[in-house]
């Protein structure tokens, strides 16, 4: 019965949302891997990208997108230099609360620079054609969904290649496994961290681009709720490994897409309760993560 109601468009939209959340999960998971830091301010990187797109919407599309990437990567590197570096080795609570403060700071700055003069809200007008549907297998699918899926798959493949085939990728994986031993064996900490931070910035800019196509109205709390949901997904999936974190991000995005599409609005009032009860149950049964099997799942990391 449920499957019958699941039409093709809901299904594809859910996959699209899952793809975007998977990219965010990778961005959060990469930094966590090398720094053991949960970056709550990740959503504000996306927000900054969205604002950049909004303010440069009168420029040629390529220039606007390039500026977005430049601003987000620069902000990501600044965050590492000013915030993450002094906090290296501090307790997780201190690092997490500091990123709250940074998120709060960036959000209040956005509140100040957010001047509604008519230019905002018309983000990437050149890309709005992506919201038009195309017919696939007799169902309507928005082009942006296909683009999001393609970009996500492409980005994940490139990332997997980078991590598997390049020296810096090998160093990053080693650092994520055991930072101290990796350093003893000659891995340069700052380079590995900068690599992870730049990659996560690039991913944030990509997400900003895709999100503004579907949600052109940029606000200071842009992507905030999504970040919280992705963080939940990442921990539920298993934050200790990149691919389990990614899978967790995808799963929670796909699940919210399907549930939102299936239930009528008047039935969804207790949906958050149901979802978060499920989250608690999964965490109780598998504290190391839903997809974490073997060695990682066994030991409790205190």
């Amino acid at each position, binding site marked *: 019965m449920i499957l019958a109601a699941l039409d093709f468009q809901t299904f594809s939209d859910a996959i699209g949302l899952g793809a975007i959340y998977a990219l965010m999960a990778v961005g959060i998971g990469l930094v966590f891997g090398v720094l053991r830091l949960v970056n709550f301010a990740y959503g504000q990187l996306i927000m900054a990208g969205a604002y950049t797109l909004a303010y440069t919407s009168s420029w040629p599309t390529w220039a606007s997108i390039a500026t977005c990437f430049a601003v987000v990567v620069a902000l990501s590197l600044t965050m590492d230099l000013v*915030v993450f570096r*002094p906090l290296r080795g501090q307790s997780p609570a201190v690092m997490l*609360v500091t990123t709250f403060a940074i998120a709060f700071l960036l959000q209040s700055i956005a509140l100040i620079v957010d001047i509604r003069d008519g230019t905002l809200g018309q983000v990437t007008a050149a890309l709005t054609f992506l919201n038009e549907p195309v017919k696939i297998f007799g169902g309507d699918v928005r082009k942006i969904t296909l683009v999001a899926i393609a970009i996500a798959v492409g980005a994940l493949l490139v990332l997997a290649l980078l991590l598997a085939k390049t020296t810096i990728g090998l160093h990053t994986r080693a650092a994520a496994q055991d930072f101290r031993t990796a350093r003893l064996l000659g891995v340069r900490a700052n380079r590995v961290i900068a690599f992870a931070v730049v990659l996560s910035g690039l991913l944030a800019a990509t997400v900003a681009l895709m999100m503004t196509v579907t949600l052109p109205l940029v606000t200071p709390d842009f992507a905030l709720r999504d970040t919280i949901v992705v963080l939940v997904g990442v921990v539920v999936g298993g934050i200790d490994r990149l691919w389990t974190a990614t899978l967790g991000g995808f799963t929670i995005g796909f699940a919210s897409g399907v549930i939102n599409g299936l239930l009528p609005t008047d039935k969804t009032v207790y949906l958050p*309760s149901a979802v978060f009860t499920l*989250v*608690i149950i999964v965490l109780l049964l598998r504290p190391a993560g839903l997809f974490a099997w073997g060695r990682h799942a066994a030991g409790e990391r*205190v």
Partner: protein
Amino acid sequence: MTRWLDPLVQLGGPVLLVVAVGLVSTTVSAANEVYFLNALVSVAIVVAIYVFVGNSGVLSFGQIAFVAVGAFAAGVMTVPLESKKGVLTTLFPLLRDHSIGNVPSLLLAAGLGGLFAFVVGLPLMRLSGLAAGIATFAVLEITHNVLQQWTKIGPGATTLSLVPESTGPLQGTLGAIVVIAVAFGYQRSRLGRKLRATREDPQVASGVGIGVHLQRLWAFTLSGALAGFAGALLVHQLGSITTEQVYLELTFLTLAMLVIGGLTSLWGAVVGALAVSGLDSFLSQSEQGVHVLGFKLDLPSGAHLAVLAAIMALVLILRPSGITGGRELRLPRAWRRS
């Protein structure tokens, strides 16, 4: 001599600070009094969080859920009967047809907060690290969702108003002192010391026969009761409340207060709460323009949040262990030797 002097200073310092804030609040204008009452209620909430997070070292985003339960229980039960029948018509008859006084509402809030925390903690205290953080966050989300939708137990998504504003300087000060005293008594008790041992090293602690999960559960329950009590203080200070006021923003702000003050000490919790709420009040005043040392400080509107966040981040970066370094208050060495 220090055997009795040290604990006296550790309890006396925070209490004196709170009394001082309470006394100053009686001398200022009614418009400014609200800032001091805010600070006192913040102290109660932050110390309640500290009882669990500070003593156990396990991060929890769920304590504001207990504040919310306490606030709405105390609020709904103290709305005067004659107005209650008009505005809160959808409540269960038992809740609709009865009202209680101020002090019973504080006790009710503490009881419900503690009970809720115990029930939630029973399964959740097996978790640690990020899993514990996310699971307690889930508790906050569920509580917020239910309070916002279930109109048989509260006002739902609308504002709960007409709550008696009984948290003045006296109740604010006394309330904060009660929370501080309970937290102090707990951390010096046998149970508190066991829990602090698990914070330093869970493996060794369980090796010497301390039940890690059980100790965390006691602290979680006590913290929940104090948080419920603090929620009742909050609703009686505000007079009206919505579910949004006891949700994400308050969670982040109170956790930031605790970490900025110093996560692992009672003194840190009190200092952090007072420092951050003092700074917040000062900065929001600055948007109207205030005179400091002969200069007129005038912030553009909206800037006070940015400045507050920047200062909080700066303190954490420069002094990650907090203003107090996570230590209890001690007299200077020269005094203690005498």
